[in-house]
């Protein structure tokens, strides 16, 4: 692996390109640029190439529009035909898995979490793309290599990341007696208790919500120094640290809005926007929707990093979106060209701007995109790729870690204890057993 330490020059270059692209290019300009890019690109698409790309279904409409504009420019410039299909978060993985298993149907998948690690043998080596982009745009954030690499090969390109951070109502927080959002776990618990007392409760998903439940519960486990496995993939979930995390989350659950055990990924968005929920862990999508539909509420919303517990350092889990190319595609060069094209500053900056903070970058040069500073409420989401751990925790991100997070091992452990279905020891023992099975 090449080490990409961001040197001043590449950062400047990225910044300049970002600045140039701020005024989103018109489609003609974009096409002109795309043509020039295709001339010089190191990947030459195969003649008559047709790509089937599956991506997650948009949460922010403008992002989707910008994405399709980019695809359109790529098609016109290269003659490659790209068919984009959308699936919701939960359906991406089964579809990709079926394609991987049958060896047909799709050429590329833009999925979430550790998708390439679920079937690494079916993912094409994209080291050349990763190296090209890393060199050009100031290097990759530290989490990019565990997400994108297996051994010394890149099997996926971490295109963007969506943050799972605290969304809260400023007025409710102040009414609860806090001037600023608590930075430690003890303060956060006090805040949630006070919010509940005021009838403006907090709430986070404890159901089988791939995004919302996994992100905050892994944070809760890690910030108490509990981990599913150690760095050698030995299962260590049954520990006093995990017990502390369970106790902590139980106390939170007791002051949450009722029903969080049944929540899926959209439940907290609905409840928050309806004014029933005053603090939750989510992407920036609640704020984006509120800005469009309820300006008064948007003015009252702010975001904060996850509080820090005994671990003494940030232990967040965010949602990376990684692009993978299947080994069985007939048009690998076209797929690689598209991946690289998407991440060039001229495309990436306006696209990320259109996503209004929902998508953040893994390439460090993109820190300078003004989208992150023009509205300070978005700023926390800028750094999520730098702060996120991987579902593997201390251990490597591989097939097993991918299986454990898909099987909700950690989520079920917390939900088991919080809902009173199992006691502390029982909940940990069940999780240990499930984890040992996966990591055998």
């Amino acid at each position, binding site marked *: 692996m090449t080490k990409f330490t961001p040197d001043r020059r590449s950062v400047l270059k990225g910044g300049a390109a970002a600045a140039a692209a701020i005024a989103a290019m018109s489609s003609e300009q974009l096409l002109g640029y795309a043509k020039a890019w295709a001339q010089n690109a190191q990947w030459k698409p195969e003649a008559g190439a047709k790509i089937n790309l599956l991506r997650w279904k948009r949460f922010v409409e403008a992002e989707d529009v910008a994405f399709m504009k980019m695809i359109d420019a790529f098609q016109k410039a290269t003659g490659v035909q790209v068919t984009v299909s959308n699936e919701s978060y939960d359906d991406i993985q089964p579809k990709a898995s079926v394609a991987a298993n049958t060896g047909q149907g799709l050429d590329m998948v833009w999925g979430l979490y550790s998708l390439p690690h679920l079937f690494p043998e079916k993912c094409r080596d994209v080291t050349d793309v990763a190296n090209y982009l890393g060199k050009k745009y100031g290097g990759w954030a530290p989490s990019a290599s565990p997400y994108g690499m297996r051994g010394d090969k890149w099997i996926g390109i971490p295109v963007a990341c969506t943050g799972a951070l605290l969304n809260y109502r400023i007025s409710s927080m102040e009414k609860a007696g806090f001037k600023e959002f608590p930075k430690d776990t003890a303060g956060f618990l006090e805040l949630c208790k006070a919010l509940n007392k005021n009838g403006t409760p907090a709430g986070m998903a404890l159901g089988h919500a791939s995004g919302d439940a996994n992100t905050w519960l892994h944070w809760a486990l890690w910030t108490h120094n509990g981990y599913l496995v150690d760095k050698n993939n030995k299962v260590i979930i049954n520990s006093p640290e995990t017990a502390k995390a369970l106790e902590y989350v139980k106390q939170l659950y007791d002051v949450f809005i009722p029903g969080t055990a049944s929540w899926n990924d959209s439940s907290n968005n609905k409840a928050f926007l309806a004014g029933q929920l005053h603090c939750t862990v989510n992407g920036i999508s609640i704020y984006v929707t509120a800005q469009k539909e309820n300006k008064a509420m948007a003015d009252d919303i702010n975001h904060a990093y996850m509080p820090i517990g005994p671990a003494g350092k940030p232990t967040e889990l965010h949602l990376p979106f990684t692009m993978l190319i299947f080994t069985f595609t007939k048009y690998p060069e076209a797929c690689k060209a598209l991946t690289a094209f998407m991440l060039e500053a001229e495309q990436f900056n306006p696209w990320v701007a259109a996503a209004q903070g929902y998508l953040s970058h893994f390439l460090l040069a993109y820190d300078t995109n003004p989208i992150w500073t023009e509205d300070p409420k978005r700023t926390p989401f800028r750094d999520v790729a730098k702060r996120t751990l991987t579902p593997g925790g201390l251990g490597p991100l591989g097939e097993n870690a991918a299986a454990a997070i898909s099987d909700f091992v950690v989520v*079920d452990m917390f939900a088991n204890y919080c809902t009173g279905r199992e006691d502390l020891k029982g909940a940990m023992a069940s999780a240990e057993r499930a984890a040992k099975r996966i990591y055998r």
Partner: protein
Amino acid sequence: MSTLQTSLKVPVEDTSIAARWQQLQTNRNYQAFWFMLPTAAFLLLFLAYPLVLGIWMGFTDERIGRPGIFIGLENYQWLWDDSVFWLSVFNTLLYTIVASVIKFAVGLYLALLLNRHMPFKAMIRALVLLPFIVPTVLSAIAFWWIYDSQFSIISWSLIKLGVISSNINFLGDSNWARASVIFANIWRGVPFVAITLLAGLQTVSPSLYEAATLDGATSWQRFRYITYPLLTPIIAVVMTFSVLFTFTDFQLIWALTRGGPVNATHLMATLSYQRGILSGRLGEGAAIATAMIPFLLAAIAISWYGMQRRKWQQGSDND
């Protein structure tokens, strides 16, 4: 003459394969074989092959995108002391038994009502079918809103009426969640039972009722000694189907709860999907699916040998 005969016989015995082929082509007794062949091929390819493949996969550690190796009964040994698996077995049985019994009772009652003469009969019969016609996922989404923890119309109405003071935790509490999904399944399944039984009821000759009425039979006696015995074959078929559909239900649970809260509504089918497809361990998922087969066979056996003892099965019309 005799020499001719022997010379004819010998080649027939020698080239027996060619002769068999000849026989297959021309003998009328083998005609049925040719007519059945396409169906047999179809069944083998689309039913037997996937079934056998699934059972085989249950004995391997296959993962998505990677072939597995034979590991014998390891998947089953693991499932044997997996509390989540047993919980899913319990849930599936509870779900199937409660939902099927209620579906049968309500369906039969509805069928008897619909069999009477009343105004707008045809329209009412068509309306009853509505829950069955709506795609499962659509009705599941409607129920999902009805059961929502914050926006439930039921909770809202009851709070406005002053019956309760806070929202009912429909899908967040284990028992409420089980009751809720069972109710949704019943709502969907009743029309199938009702309409099929109604079809059965219409085959019962009115003269039997007339004769019974003349003999002074009460309405209960008419049901017990005329309707019920004549309806038994239909009941057996309908209930077999109903039990099989309920036992293997997937969509409704997946759209409503995804097996939550804390696996309280995980059925074997949903658990199999979660383990096999979502977390990529095809072998284990296949083992869970295979574990459903004995239950399904038992359900079929009960209905065929239990409810269809009657001689009509053998062509006689009396016990």
